[in-house]
């Protein structure tokens, strides 16, 4: 079975016991993203503390890959500077475009920590969007939070 290459233990752990799940106040921006091919959804909030991601909170429904991905992302980005968090998102994007190439995963191990376990997903084009949905939502929410800060608004 090829399945284990996609459903790594780490992924299944995040799926069954998600980190940081639930919507929390206060927040600077909230976004709602959907994967229109399958109906997966995530609502994601970002709270900034200056240039730092103070909290990411979320609710969503979707497959194990999309749910585990947002949980692993939470671990990776909270406490980081926004620019670093978005850079990590770029690394994750690179991993998703690797078509399962183990060399790419190896190179990104330090930057992506648990999220490097998603390398196997990149072999399945139909599932890449599931893994990327939360990262796209984070990028969107961060941009909105930053611009809210600049205009002085906050929730």
């Amino acid at each position, binding site marked *: 079975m090829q399945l284990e290459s996609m*459903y790594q233990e780490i992924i299944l752990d995040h799926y069954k016991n998600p980190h940081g799940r639930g919507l929390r106040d206060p927040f600077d921006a909230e976004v709602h993203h959907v994967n229109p*091919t399958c*109906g997966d959804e995530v609502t994601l909030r970002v709270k900034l503390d200056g240039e730092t991601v103070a909290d990411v909170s979320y609710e969503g429904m*979707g*497959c194990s890959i999309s749910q585990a991905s947002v949980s692993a992302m939470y671990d990776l980005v909270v406490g980081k500077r926004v620019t670093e968090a978005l850079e990590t998102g770029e690394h994750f994007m690179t991993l998703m475009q690797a078509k399962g190439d183990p060399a790419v995963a190896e190179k990104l191990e330090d930057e992506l920590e648990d999220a490097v376990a998603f390398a196997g997903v990149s072999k399945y084009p139909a599932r890449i969007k599931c893994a990327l949905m939360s990262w796209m939502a984070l990028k969107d929410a961060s941009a909105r939070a930053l611009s809210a800060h600049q205009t002085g608004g906050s929730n």
Partner: protein
Amino acid sequence: MTQTVSRPGAGAQQVPLPLDVEAIRADFPILTRTVRDGKRLVYLDSGATSQKPRSVLDAERWFYENINAAPHRGAHQLAEEATAAYEEARAKIGAFLGAPENEIVFTRNTTEAINLVAYALSNAVTAKEPEFRTYAVGQGDEIVVTEMEHHADLLPWQQLCERTGATLRWLGLTDEGRLDLSDLDTVVNERTKLVAVTQQSNILGTINPLEEIVARAHAVGALVLVDGAQSVPHQPVDVTALGADFLVFSGHKMLGPTGVGVLWGRYEVLDKLPPFLTGGSMIEVVRMEASTFMPPPQRFEAGVPMTAQVIGLGAAVDYLQALGMDKVEEHEKVLTGYALAKLAEIPGVTVIGPPDTVARGGAISFTVEDIHPHDVGQVLDDLGIAVRVGHHCAWPVVRRYGVPATTRATFYVHTGYDDVDALADGIRQAQKFFGTV
């Protein structure tokens, strides 16, 4: 019609299937390939698109190798032969539906056929020819759909209403996956201009009681469009018996090529519709100031048509007719009963749609407790089983039944008990893999 009705818990019984599955499989080259490291391909996604028998592939190749030319143009021999082959296919497809050939319009697919009608109804508003304004839709008018429609039979009508100021209304669903017709007489009323309804749901498998809907629609002077994308490939459909004004379907779901669909329309209705797409080969006289159009079906076939695909669809109709549509229907009914019984034996599996084979086709949507449909589909794919996962382009339906998505298996002429058994085993493996049992 078979009397076989399997109820959940009745136990899955293998009675002889109406079609010779092994002989049919030999006609489909793709069924000899393997997937995911050497596994037999178990293709349970015919509802999305069907596989093609060799005779369909051969017909397209024959066209290109022997008579390729643009039909209805030119006077050379190839053009004459291409025109004859194209029109023969039209007559054959008409006969398949019990319709004269001048009521058969070729489109790209079901989606385009529905858009053709929807745009014709709004183009009618500004048509300069009085007879083309017969079916014009405007403010105060109503279009009726159902909550069961595929997006292709919902969005064109939503958009028509936005363009014209008409109001969209719909018939809801019962908990059993059937149309709720209790308010049929109020939803379909004297303001209704058109009722669009699917004959067979692509997600629930439900076969709808069209007779009652057509009768009510015609009593108030409304047109009826039947979405036959999931019925024409799987059951005998006769337009006279149907009584509707339009029937639409796709070639690629009935063993034919992609890129060809059909709009059947009652001639006297088609004749009063303005064109949707305009351009070459649909015209009578063209002047710089204005032009006039051909009668149907040419009025609705602008541009060089998908000739090879039409001829391929003709070959698909030959193939289906040789099997016999009664037998195709019965084959799928037996398999559906078997599959429903097999799924009922698996704890945690819930079928979304009618639980037995009464007025039901072979689209079986289900959920598996605590496993997302994508993950179910992934395990099945790993075993070589192709199913569809998601909302099946019928988002309101999954919303209605309170699930984010479903896994869907669909059957066709090459489906056998071994395919259904593989599906049931695969679901159990998914449950084992995700530790839910």
